[in-house]
């Protein structure tokens, strides 16, 4: 059972070795000549002005993440249902339709309130 994941682990090892190895080799052979301009934040050639540590983003992004979480849960429930729904028949379909329907109402409400308007 767990042995199924052995090749995945090997692939993971290869990917890590490749990525870390590239960075290490690059840091060994690449030049390193820092100066204040190079080390400053890039703002298209302007003198860096912005203080981004305290930047706050639009609540829209948070709404997207919230919706993502809810639909993610929906997706992971749809998958096992999709596997067995032939056995469940119309009863199973009704269940899922109700589930999707209830979330659909919330989704429509959200769109109606303008929660997804990117103005």
């Amino acid at each position, binding site marked *: 059972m767990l042995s*199924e*994941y*052995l*090749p*995945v682990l*090997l*692939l*993971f090892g*290869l*990917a*890590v070795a*490749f*990525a870390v190895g*590239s*960075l290490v*080799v*690059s*840091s060994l*052979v*690449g*030049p*390193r*000549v*820092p100066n204040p301009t*190079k*080390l*400053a*934040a*890039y*703002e298209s050639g302007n003198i*860096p002005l*912005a203080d*981004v540590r305290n*930047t706050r*983003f639009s609540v829209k992004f948070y709404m*997207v993440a919230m*919706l*993502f979480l809810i*639909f*993610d849960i929906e*997706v*992971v429930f*749809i*998958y096992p249902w*999709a*596997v067995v*729904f*032939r056995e469940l*028949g*119309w009863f199973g*379909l009704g269940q*899922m*339709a109700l589930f*999707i329907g209830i979330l659909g109402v919330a*989704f429509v409400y959200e*769109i109606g309130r303008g929660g*997804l*308007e*990117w*103005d």
Partner: protein
Amino acid sequence: MEQPLWVPVLQAVVVFAYYLLITAVLIWAERRVVARMQSRLGPNRVGPFGILQTLVDGAKMFFKEDITPGMVNKVIYNLAPLVGVIAGFLVVAVIPIGGEVTLFGETFTLVVADLSIGVLWILALSSIHVYSVFLAGWASNSPYPLLGGIRSSAQMISYEIAQGLAVASVVIYAGSLRVSDIVAAQSGPGFIDGVPAWYAIPLFPAFLVFVIGMVAEAGRPPFDLAEAEGELVGGFNTEYSGMRFGMFMLAEFMSVVTMSAIVVPLFLGGPAGPTFGLPDSVAWVMPILWFFLKMVGFIFFFILLRGAMPRYRYDKLMNLGWKVLIPVALVWTLVTATFVLIEEAGGLPAGTRLGLAVAAAVILLVLLFGGRASAPDTRSVAKAPDITAGRTPALDEPGSADLQATDHQEVAP
């Protein structure tokens, strides 16, 4: 374990090398094809047709200075590119790149691991990939990367849902989350004689949603809002240079390859295809070839899109994802399930089936593209005076015409 240890090692190494190699060739191919679309030659100096260009560029990356700007959060800054590349390699672990191969008396499939939850694996690794983008933006501690990072992570999670829902109807048809079962389920007779039973045909709306999601998920034109040069410089990787930037490049191009690889078993029958009666000693090559051809078709599609399409606007991108693709995929999931149950109960006559399919396709096309001509985006036009109030007059305002006219007179003597 019944298999000797070298089998999983070989599987892992072959898959790793396969995708790395194809990614390298893709970068070259894209430059050549886009160049051809723009009446240029593209890289043609290094090796035959310039095919070694990527290798040389990669080698160059090693000798570039890898600047770590002063304001970054060093640990996360270094971690972010690694996460992207590693997740990119791992996501293809469940995709078979060929059929069964017999080597030294061992028969095995050309796949790293045919997990029973293969489809979820793809979803999980895509969501890990978001971390790379988000953390790169956050750790850079600089305005453009921050904007680019949060923009593209919001884009990625939105389209991930669309993709996950599109795959749900595939799972409904196949009745399994295992990729090899999904491939096997597509090997039967087709819905129409002479056409393969690929899910792209009966599940066309889901296929369409998945392909659009694919482009957005990979952050490729026309959905490359992450690196909208005109507004965000380079997006989340602005503060990266040298090999660390190279890692982001690799991850981006590799996601083109991995997305093309993922869509093939889900919607296009995977490595299956006719073997033309070849003897068994040679026939094992055919699945590899078929898979490769199908995948290259999608890669080519990605490249053509890049050459042909202008960049989308961010609000339109999010609207497309949330208000079109996700509802379509959700409804389609239920429609598919209803159809499957009707089929189980006895099925519809072939004519009705075809008619319904055509009707569904027409409705979908109208929904997707029909509204454009009748409903122009008046919102942004109406808003224009607000934004420019007190500054230069907008071009469509009275007065701006005079401005233009005087400009013309001055410029043209």
